[in-house]
């Protein structure tokens, strides 16, 4: 019933500005120079189309109204007019040329990545994004946030609460970028084609496996905040579930974030050198498994045969540790490679698979993974 009222109010009030804001009827203007240029271009072409539509459709509607047999209209017999035909060939050409000029300018500007002062590498995986800051030595994976995952098959209430009103648009690890700095993105993929899209930046670029595309963005100072987007190229089963969240912060906050990340990375590397207890591995492994593997192999390890095999009773998980490590590191067919995960995480998840779900495999240590790389 509530839906029905919304439906009616939307239908009735589509033209009022408040509704425009609330329901997002139009393209976002965004916050970058490029997104604003795109928006202006979009509005220009839109109004040109509206103007042409008004002329063409009023002629048509007038004719349908006035030139009706029931109104006693008698058909004229003309069927040609060179002047008219020339006019409606040449005038559209002129309009198109006038539209092409600003479009060309915007296009050339947005393809020019030469001004960039820092680089972020973005890699699409089925179904998550990996972000690398090559100069700072930072690398992490960004998955759909757990509360959104849980709400997919939950109630309307769950979905309202998920990610503070950002159901399906929230992640565990956000990309962090400084404002006021031109940034180059290098975009690629490891398996199928993905597309990295943040509407407010005016950046949308295919991530092609085996090739690197670039794009750039500069978020003007004063626009710090959170920006969201989604994968925009069908990439398989969970294409709808690999959002993008970017935190734009000031340069000072960014520098602080970088040193924190570097410290955390160092701690992780140190922990890979020690020997872990089985309980530690199992606890860590469970969380790594649920974020990275459960999408295909299911939380309870039953998988989705025949495409995604079950972990329960899996010959690999109960077999030689070396084979298991190799398969997870390098992938096989539709099983993605996971070499971007750290040694401890990999050791933990492999140990977990070998000992959870009623399996009886051996314990794998980070050092085993390290030597298998």
């Amino acid at each position, binding site marked *: 019933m509530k839906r029905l009222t919304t*439906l009616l109010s939307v*239908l009735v009030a589509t033209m009022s500005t408040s509704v425009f804001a609330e*329901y997002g*009827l*139009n*393209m*976002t203007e965004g916050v970058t120079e490029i*997104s604003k240029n795109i928006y202006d*271009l*979009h509005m220009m*072409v839109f109004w040109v*189309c509206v103007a042409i*539509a008004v002329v*063409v459709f009023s002629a*048509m509607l007038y*004719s349908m109204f006035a*030139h*009706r*047999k029931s109104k006693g209209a008698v*058909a*004229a017999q*003309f*069927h040609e*007019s060179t002047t008219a*035909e020339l006019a409606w*060939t040449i005038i*559209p050409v002129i309009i*198109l040329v006038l*539209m092409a000029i600003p*479009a060309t300018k*915007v*296009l050339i500007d*947005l*393809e020019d990545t030469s001004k960039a002062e820092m680089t972020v590498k973005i890699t699409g995986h089925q179904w998550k994004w990996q972000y690398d800051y090559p100069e700072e030595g930072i690398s992490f994976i960004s998955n759909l946030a757990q509360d959104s995952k849980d709400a*997919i*098959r*939950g109630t*309307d209430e769950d*979905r309202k609460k998920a990610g503070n009103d950002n*159901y399906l648009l929230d992640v565990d690890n956000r990309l962090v970028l400084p404002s006021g700095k031109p940034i180059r993105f290098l975009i690629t993929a490891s*398996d*199928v084609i993905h*597309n990295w*899209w943040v509407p407010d930046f005016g950046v949308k670029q*295919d991530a*092609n*496996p*085996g*090739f690197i595309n670039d794009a750039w963005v500069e978020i003007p100072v004063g626009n710090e905040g959170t920006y969201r987007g*989604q994968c*925009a190229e*069908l*990439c*398989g*089963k*969970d*294409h*709808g579930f690999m959002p993008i969240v970017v935190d734009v912060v000031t340069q000072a906050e960014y520098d602080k974030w970088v040193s924190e990340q570097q410290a955390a990375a160092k701690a992780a590397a140190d922990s890979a050198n020690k020997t872990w207890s089985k309980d530690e591995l199992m606890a860590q492994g469970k969380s790594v498994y649920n974020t990275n593997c459960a999408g295909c192999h299911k939380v309870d390890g039953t998988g989705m045969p*025949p*495409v995604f095999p079950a972990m329960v009773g899996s010959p690999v998980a109960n077999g030689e540790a070396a084979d298991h490590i190799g398969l997870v590191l390098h992938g096989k067919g539709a099983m993605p490679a996971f070499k971007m995960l750290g040694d401890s995480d990999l050791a933990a998840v492999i140990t977990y698979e070998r000992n959870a779900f009623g399996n009886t495999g051996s314990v794998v240590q980070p050092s085993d993974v390290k030597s298998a790389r």
Partner: protein
Amino acid sequence: MTTATASHDDHHHGPEKGLMRWVKTTNHKDIGSLYMWFAFIMLLIGGALAMGIRAELLAPGMQLMEPQFFNSLTTMHGLIMVFGAIMPAFVGLGNWLIPMMVGAPDMALPRMNNWSFWILPFAGGILLSTFFMEGGAPAFGWTFYAPLSTTFAPDSTDFFIFAVHLLGFSSIMGAINIIATVLNMRAPEMKLMDMPLFVWTWLITSFLLIGAMPVLAGAVTMMLTDRNFGTAFFDATGGGDPVMFQHIFWFFGHPEVYIMILPAFGVVSHIIPTFARKPLFGYSSMVYATASIAFLSYIVWAHHMFLTGMPVAGELYFMYATMLIAVPTGVKVFNWISTMWRGSMTFEAPMLWAVSFVFLFTIGGFSGLMLGIAPADIQYHDTYFVVAHFHYVLVTGALWSIIAATFYWLPKWTGKMYNEGLAKVHFWWAIISVNVLFFPQHFLGLAGMPRRIPDYSLQFADFNYISSIGGFAFGASFILLTYIIIDCVRNGKPAEARPWPSAKGLEWTLEPKAQYHSFNTPPSRKLIEQESQNS
């Protein structure tokens, strides 16, 4: 008495009786009907899949299915609508109408005609059977981009490839047949510029088919060898290039979209003059515009690929070429409106569909123009804005013209009139619901909803809800359409030979229900001139 029946004396064989008539027939009218019924059934199946899609999208959250099955639904919906419904329906119209319009007794290659139809049910059957295979039906979109359709695709993909090959054979044979019929079987007294526009548009479409379908066959063959025989055309680890797949696909794909709209232009160019009681405006510019659209359609393919990482020069070229297509398309729209201008119009069902075609197709053309602006396409690409665009050109364009043509020529096919009152009810039902279905998708796309997703964030909930309601209503309208057609075939009142008094065309000189063999002696020059659209 008409020319044709007067000379119909030496062989009196009518159709065979029973089921074998349809299996063995080489008659263009029988085959035309087979095509039309096949297309209609596929339309209903494709529509049922769409109901599944809209049901899942009715509200946020996954309620009815797994995401993978959702992807199978969108993929199969697209494939069935394009290859199973729209294309066969136009071939069916061509089969029925072209021989009658050019004063021929039948198609030039009748046995091949039988074959090109009978391939279709098998191809369609194979395609649909993938739903029941292990791993599910193809789920990579109707554009089947590699490597999602090669390394990462379900096993059923090899059946999909086989089905596409069969469909391609069928289309190419159909196209050859139409070219041969128009060029060799045309009444000797009929010059090319006497031909009705439906014949012209189909002739040009046939050349598009012959040019484009082999490219599609090449693309799926490369997929087949990548999947099974160790090649790496589209696999970067073996030195291939996934973007090359898109170039090949769209080199087929863009001409393909014009394959689905040029015959529609032809249909509308027949109906509007009839009900405006006025000659078609600009016959020759219609012919030239069709030919230039066909030419341009071969050189704009990469406007579907602005985000693949093309060099700027390439993007600029494809943007300019794409914008150019708006010019001949505009010429057509202006000509139709000039035909209506100062006419004496009535609005029987065929005219309602034709006029609303002009209106709604033009809306699709506007969004096409917007999509062609490369920088703006950054925000539009792969969103619901594109979904709205191609449904306005394909549903309220191509499909609309097919429904218009059905009502317009149904009296000639069956010798009976359909129920005009019901047809009008159906029209209003369909046109209101189709706009409730597709118009809000423009807003969804602009607000940032990607296409091909089974679930969405809450900000998109209201418009998806509206769109789904429109979808169910539009789907239900086809029940009424089915009734109207069956009612016409069974109980329709007898039609006159020329049920629309101001209609022109040789087909109207035949008996009310066109005789089994149309023109056994070619029509005279005088008759051709009388019935010509190019007056």
